[in-house]
């Protein structure tokens, strides 16, 4: 309990610092929300009026604390550029990005778990060597490049999907999901490669330990030893990786969204940065940071459940 409370406080401090840094960064980089909105059509009068309206003329700290006070109360403000509530903008796009992260995560677990165990069991054989070579290639290719390659092969040559033919989940849920498959493969592939490699190494390492011999001597068959003993221990580093990966996938989808022309959180974030649309950028970044921190927290907990020897709390 004490541990959870401590974690919670650290989490809040981290979020606070992040929100401040974002505000601060926007204050020092060139560009001005009013000017970005008006462009070259701006006249000095209209600029001044808009700055006044958006409150850009007030001191930096005053603006920050006002934003913070509203944010804590659940009022995320109104977008400077699109003049609509930030909460609405995010909530309509969040399902897209979350869905992408979840599908890629599922793909990773479903593919890497059997593949990792399989290669470990066949380590040294030709099939293992072949898989490891492919694995190494997948690991080295950045996901945005993989995205471009997938679009080319499956979209343009094989015509399995229409590049850019994204359909919103509100229009047609199944077409939405089917469009997300290839972007998710692009996100998942390097992660699959990483966890296969880690799981394989970890399994081989565990299998060489004394307790495995003991387990065999107690009359267990290979499968029993594998699932009851080896895998359980070998999973621990993999769970850590997966935990970090889930957060990473959420962030990774920001890049992939651009490649596959998906209007998710990433699109909102990037356009808002270029328009100096502070309220939107703040909300999105704090949200992403919160997800990363919460995921890490959950991983710590799962960690403890998976391996009772580890006591993260330090009672």
């Amino acid at each position, binding site marked *: 309990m004490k541990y959870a409370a401590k974690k919670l406080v650290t989490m809040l401090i981290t979020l606070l610092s992040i929100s401040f840094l974002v505000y601060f960064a926007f204050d020092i980089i060139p560009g001005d929300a009013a000017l970005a909105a008006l462009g070259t059509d701006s006249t000095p009068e*209209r600029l001044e009026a808009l700055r006044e309206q958006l409150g850009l003329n007030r001191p930096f700290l005053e603006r920050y604390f006002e934003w913070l006070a509203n944010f804590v109360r659940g009022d995320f403000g109104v977008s400077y550029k*699109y003049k*609509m509530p930030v909460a609405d903008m995010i909530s309509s796009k969040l399902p897209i990005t979350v869905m992408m992260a979840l599908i890629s995560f599922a793909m990773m677990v479903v593919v890497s778990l059997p593949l990792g165990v399989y290669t470990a069991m066949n380590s040294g054989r030709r099939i293992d060597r072949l898989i490891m070579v492919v694995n190494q290639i997948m690991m080295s290719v950045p996901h945005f490049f993989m995205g471009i390659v997938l679009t080319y092969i499956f979209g343009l040559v094989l*015509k*399995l999907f229409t590049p850019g033919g994204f359909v919103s989940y*509100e229009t047609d849920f199944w077409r939405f999901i089917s*469009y997300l498959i290839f972007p998710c493969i692009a996100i998942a592939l390097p992660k699959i490669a990483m966890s296969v490699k880690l799981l394989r190494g970890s399994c081989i390492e565990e299998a060489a330990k004394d307790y495995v011999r003991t387990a065999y001597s107690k009359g267990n068959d290979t499968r029993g030893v594998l699932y009851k003993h080896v895998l359980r221990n070998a999973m621990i580093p993999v769970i850590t990786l997966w935990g970090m990966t889930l957060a990473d996938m959420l962030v990774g989808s920001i890049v992939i969204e651009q490649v596959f022309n998906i*209007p998710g959180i990433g699109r909102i974030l990037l356009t808002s940065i270029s328009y100096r649309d502070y309220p939107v950028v703040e909300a999105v970044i704090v949200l992403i940071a919160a997800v990363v921190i919460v995921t890490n927290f959950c991983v710590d907990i799962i960690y403890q459940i998976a391996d009772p020897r580890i006591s993260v709390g330090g009672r």
Partner: protein
Amino acid sequence: MTKRRHKFSKVLFVSMLLTLTVALGGCAGDKEDGDSSRIAIGIPQDLSSLDPNIAEGSGTQEILFNIYEGLYKPDSDGNLIPAVASGYTMSDGGATYTFTLRDGIQFHNGNPVTVADVKYSIEKCAGLNGGDPLISAFSNIESVETPDDRSIVIRLKEPSTVFLAICATIEAAIVPADVADLETNPIGTGPYKFVSRSLQENVVLESFDDYWGEKAHIKNVTLKVIADSDAIVMNLEGGAVDMMARVSTAQAAALSDKFELLEGTMNLVQGMYLNNAVEPFDNELVRQALCYAVDKQEILDFVSEGKGTPVGSSMFPAFGKYYMEELNDVYATDVEKAKALLTEAGYPNGFSFTVKVPSNYQQHVDTAQVLAEQYKKIGVTANIELIEWESWLSDVYQNRDFEATVVGVDASTLTAGAMLSRFRSDAHNNFINYSNAEYDAEYEKALAAEAVGDDEAATVHYKECETILTLTAANVYIQDMCELVAINKKYAGYEFYPLYIQDLAKLYIVE
């Protein structure tokens, strides 16, 4: 054990195949469903607003042109044609404009357009019912009266002959007086009506059956936001969009013969704009030397495969009577002359300067690179600094903190002032700090001539202004860039406008 694994991989394979089939089925569905005609058009950024009176940015306005109309509107030749009004008369030497409301014209919600709506819209833009004027040129409006239910009388503080052109801009669109929030409920009189919008994703339009003029040919239009320019070719080839305006020559080259490439001009003046207030560009000889050193044709060849129209002053060909082709040849490429001018100016060994280029405009970046090469020949070093568009707006355009920049300057209306007024010494948008008493005087004369309705004299004075800009080498003028529109051969009817306008109503399906 191995057997079991084998079974598992089989299951995995089958399930993957199944998902692919689902994906495939999904795609087949989004081609032709229903018998109504449709087209998907790519746009590089989402619309900033759906309220025409406050919408900023040419990328937004060029689309809103299809939903809203002003009293007048431009046609593809740059003439002003009646829209919400069916005609007008000018009196008091341009101080009073009387518009006649078009008979039977309707808003998209089915309500007839009344003179009260027109009065409301004009007053809203002029800031007459409280608030700042939304259109600065409309601050000239003294009053708007509606003597009967067909006429609108607009009285101006100062006579103006260009007032009609302002009334034809999308900012001056006529909107219903009783619709409070155009942002969520955009209602206009244009050939297309708004259906739905998903932020950063798409805007859906449908043709308006009760349009007063020639109705749109294609029923459903989806404007799809394609934020990543690298995805444009794939989106076109894959069939997600059927048309995209302003593709680059590189993208055009990558397209298959499913697409037709239409070539027009961007209607802007691309140049290396020089801060006339900083050293060494405060010296006219230096500026002239930079002009002589440039080979415009070489730039065109390198950057756009020779496409584009060289220009010699702040005016582009679509302006017709104001455009002076002869100014193109004032600075025929002459490296020796450029060197001599530099020596005369006190820079026999050249100098170095920084040119800030907005990184999102690849063509300007490429142009800057060719320019830098050309300037090496006269001993001048141009250091290219790539900056974000928003930084360009604040640093270069607003704070005028730059030495040189490569951009294109366009016009919001087809009035000479749209291109030339910014070079008056005291103009708020004179970002190059051009200061020339002779120019100011000439511009005043042009305005004075316009005020008494003497268009011919005004044109002469405007042309004189352009000549002054060229002779004093205000900027290194390069070209009016070519605009390429990629359109699937299933469609035709695209028309180029001399202003930022995408006229969707003219598009039709080739049988």
